[in-house]
């Protein structure tokens, strides 16, 4: 655990990479240039299913500046076995292989790569490719395809498999005093990070490749291309120094990586491939999901039964899976629980993890259902949740390493003013606007994953941290620097952080909110090892004042290794290194999950989110006007960047609740709104002020540094809280996200028809 009198960790310091980002000096993948670099542009399929009957590239090849057009008919040979195509975080099934054959598996699938001397030539030649398809009838409507739903035969991870039922959920449901059961629908969503997916491959005469790549894991991309193209990992370096957002979309390699490397190896030239915004809708997505939640409670509001079933979309070629329903078995105390999860295949690209995958979706349904139950009972929705508070993980029968959710409820409600809420729907107004207050609980797992880091201390007191970690906007550069600075007694400006490079210390992909806890703990371990080595050198010096000092007794302060209890006693770092004849000390730190602890304990982050909406009384336009998000996320390493993580999650949650909807024309199976004008993500004018509270939560077990990770928890529960607030404002329960004006108005019509 970090020292509580910390000087660097826990302080809201600005990001160390900030000045580069605000001045345009931070270089993202596709911004790496080289004289003579070629440009690739991808041509995509315009049917969702079928075969390419004929593809004519003559006109495109003849276009001025074009070097070569690749299709399935002339693509260089690559690995045969699926095993080579599976990246570190692949899901069960057969990974997609770009330009492998004439099969079309989804709308927008890459069918050709045009490589030219300029971006414009590649772009303008691509539409000259003539394609004749033999299309099949598309299957893209989850509502229809759920008839062929199935339990995934191969689980993606054991922890995603719903636990077996406990108690007698059906019987308890039938016998309970209060019960609700409802269907909830989520339309597909697209990550849409602002940076387009891009790869710049710098080809070297010696056979080496340096690949600047938009990814959440440089080593995952390196291993993938080495496996697919049979390259020597020693000769391939993948860099992702700056990543313009990803939200999960950069966990698995995307086809532009494959295509850029393929063309580079084939043409023996440096090649860049940057996708268009339209193509960002053909890569991966948060899958459309249909859910049924049934809840029952006794007269005191104690849960008697929880049943949650989900059917989720996947592709024809892979079984993407996420944990949608399991949360319902551990969110509240209940002894009768039944959870089930199925997939249905669509003609679409394989879905992927998108910020809080599974939890954002499943808890949106569970927490809307909890609100429905509260109204069925006639109980305040917050009171219902507090009454069913649970202090251990009933799914796995494990203790929790910490759970300060009760403080989130208390502090969040106080800040929001929840006690002033009137219970009845449609009872609060502000002029023309109907006002509604809603709340929800959020949960996400607090994971530690294997991570390594190196820390080097120089004679002048400067420090270098290095690891193949990524910073996708999360603040990783800064917090890793803070941890090293704290441990080695220097200010943050003395620390240089090198990440985003596959040649550095082994680090997994940046996902699951585990980077801060994992890489942070590795940096802490490496820093401790540096201090230990420094002390070992100091102790061997002639007449050393630290000859008898133990590790616990010394610290570094003002460039000296000193006795903790008396800073007068010590030695300058420079002198110690000079005596030891070294110019610096570098040590390696490593962390891995504690398997013994994992048998007994589970760890989660929690949140309570409170939302105010105003719904125009006549036009039914909903707006989120106030949000309080109270988070229990363990130790907060940097309150400034931590707050930003939560703000971002809340904003994406508002998008999920009100705006974001991938629209597919099921007659053609094609995505209709593949641009940022028609797929609306929240804009400035959609977002009012958001209040973030971090409640005190000490957890010495979750990770060596006590941090839990904050990348996902911010979004979880937000969509339910918004939907519950809209119910409170309007008296209308809309169970189909996003809650757009048409749905609010349509319910009006239904209500009026029923009344008349």
């Amino acid at each position, binding site marked *: 655990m970090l020292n509580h009198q910390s000087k660097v960790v826990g302080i809201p310091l*600005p990001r160390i990479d900030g000045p580069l980002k605000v001045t*345009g000096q931070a270089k993202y993948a596709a911004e790496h240039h080289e004289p003579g670099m070629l440009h690739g542009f991808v041509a995509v399929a315009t049917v969702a299913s079928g075969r390419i009957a004929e593809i004519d590239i003559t006109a495109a090849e003849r276009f001025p*500046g074009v070097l070569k057009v690749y299709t399935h008919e002339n693509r260089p040979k690559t690995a045969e076995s699926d095993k080579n195509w599976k990246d570190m975080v692949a899901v069960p099934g057969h990974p997609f292989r770009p330009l492998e054959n004439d099969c079309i598996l989804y709308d927008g699938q890459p069918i050709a790569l045009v490589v030219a001397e300029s971006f*414009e030539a590649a772009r303008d030649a691509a539409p000259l490719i003539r394609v004749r398809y033999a299309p099949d009838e598309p299957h893209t409507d989850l509502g229809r395809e759920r008839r062929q739903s199935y339990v995934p035969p191969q689980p993606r991870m054991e922890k995603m498999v719903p636990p077996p039922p406990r108690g007698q959920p059906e019987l308890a449901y039938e016998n309970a005093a209060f019960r609700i059961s409802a269907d909830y629908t989520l339309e597909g969503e697209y990550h*849409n990070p602002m940076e387009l997916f891009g790869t710049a491959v710098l080809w070297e005469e010696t056979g080496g490749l340096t690949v600047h790549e938009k990814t959440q894991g440089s080593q995952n991309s390196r291993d993938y291309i080495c496996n697919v193209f049979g390259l020597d990992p020693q000769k391939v370096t993948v860099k992702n120094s*700056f990543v313009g*957002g990803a939200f999960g979309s950069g966990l698995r390699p995307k086809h532009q990586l494959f295509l850029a490397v393929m063309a580079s190896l084939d043409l023996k030239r440096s090649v860049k491939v940057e996708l268009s915004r339209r193509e960002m809708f053909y890569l991966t997505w948060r899958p459309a999901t249909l859910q049924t939640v049934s809840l029952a409670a006794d007269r005191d509001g104690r849960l008697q039964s929880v049943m949650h079933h989900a059917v989720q979309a996947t592709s024809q070629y892979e079984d993407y899976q996420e944990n949608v329903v399991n949360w319902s078995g551990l969110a509240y105390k209940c002894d009768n629980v039944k959870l089930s999860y199925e997939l249905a295949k669509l003609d679409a690209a394989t879905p992927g993890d998108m910020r809080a995958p599974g939890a954002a979706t499943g808890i949106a349904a569970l927490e809307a259902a909890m609100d429905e139950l509260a109204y069925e009972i006639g109980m305040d929705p917050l009171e219902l949740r507090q009454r069913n508070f649970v202090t251990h993980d009933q799914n796995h029968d494990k203790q929790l390493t910490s759970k300060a959710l009760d403080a989130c409820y208390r502090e969040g409600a106080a800040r929001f003013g929840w006690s002033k809420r009137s219970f009845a729907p449609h009872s609060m107004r502000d002029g023309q606007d109907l006002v509604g207050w809603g709340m929800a609980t959020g949960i996400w797992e607090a994971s530690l994953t294997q991570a390594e880091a190196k820390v080097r201390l120089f004679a002048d007191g400067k420090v270098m941290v290095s690891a193949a970690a990524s910073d996708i906007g999360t603040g990783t550069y800064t917090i890793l620097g803070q941890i090293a600075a704290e441990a080695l007694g220097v200010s943050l400006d003395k620390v240089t952080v090198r990440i985003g490079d596959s040649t550095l210390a082994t680090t997994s992909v940046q996902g699951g909110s585990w980077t801060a806890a994992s890489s942070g703990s590795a940096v802490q371990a490496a820093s401790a090892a540096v201090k230990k080595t420094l002390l070992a050198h100091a102790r061997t010096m002639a007449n050393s004042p630290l000859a008898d000092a133990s590790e616990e007794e010394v610290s570094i302060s003002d460039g000296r290794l000193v006795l903790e209890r008396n800073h007068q006693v010590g030695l300058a770092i420079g002198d110690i290194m000079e005596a030891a004849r070294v110019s610096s000390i570098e040590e390696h730190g490593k962390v891995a999950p504690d398997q013994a602890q994992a048998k007994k304990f589970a760890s989660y982050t929690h949140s309570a989110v409170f939302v105010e909406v105003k719904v125009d009384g006549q036009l039914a336009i909903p707006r989120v006007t106030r949000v309080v998000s109270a988070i229990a996320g363990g130790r907060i390493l940097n309150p400034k960047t931590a707050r*930003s993580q939560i703000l971002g999650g809340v904003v994406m949650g508002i998008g999920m609740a009100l705006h974001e909807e991938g629209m597919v024309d099921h007659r053609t199976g094609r995505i209709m709104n593949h641009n940022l004008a028609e797929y609306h993500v929240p804009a400035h004018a959609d977002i009012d002020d958001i209040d973030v509270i971090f409640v005190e939560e000490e957890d010495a077990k979750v990770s060596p540094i006590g941090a839990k990770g904050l990348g996902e928890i911010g979004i979880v529960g937000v969509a339910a809280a918004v939907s519950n607030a809209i119910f409170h404002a309007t008296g209308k329960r809309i169970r189909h996200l996003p809650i757009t004006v048409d749905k609010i108005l349509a319910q009006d019509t239904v209500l009026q028809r029923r009344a008349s």
Partner: protein
Amino acid sequence: MDIGTPLSTCPVMLTVNGEHHRFELHPWVTLLDLLRGPMELTGTKKGCDHGQCGACTVLVDGERVNSCLKLAVSLDGAEITTIEGLGTPQRMHPLQKAFVEHDAYQCGYCTPGQICSAAGLLAEGHAHSRAEIRELMSGNLCRCGAYTNIADAIEDVMSREAAKTVREAAE
């Protein structure tokens, strides 16, 4: 830009961040691609190429413009300011400093566009409140959701500039 073709190019004069440049350009080259490509001014970002996200915002003769929607040949004689022209890590523009201070970004990809847009907004003088900042900055999307912090940063600079104006008027 030569793609080895007989297609004709046009001469274009541009002043970019105070420096004069002469180009021979094909008419289909956008200002954005000129900046990011041959000029290697990659601080200006491509987020959609359709004028829908604002990541490519630069100042053309002092006004904020989506550079992806401008053909470079249509700007002969124009003065362009990109994020690189506003400030450097060592000498940051007040907006750049405020963005760092308020953590008004996360991944940083929309940030140059947000800052150029904010510079244009301040010059326009139409925004007087937080609500107006939000409305008039809505052409710049931020998927990381840094909006409240961006509003804080702009409001901070706006109020400091207003205070400076008052001080100068009083002197």
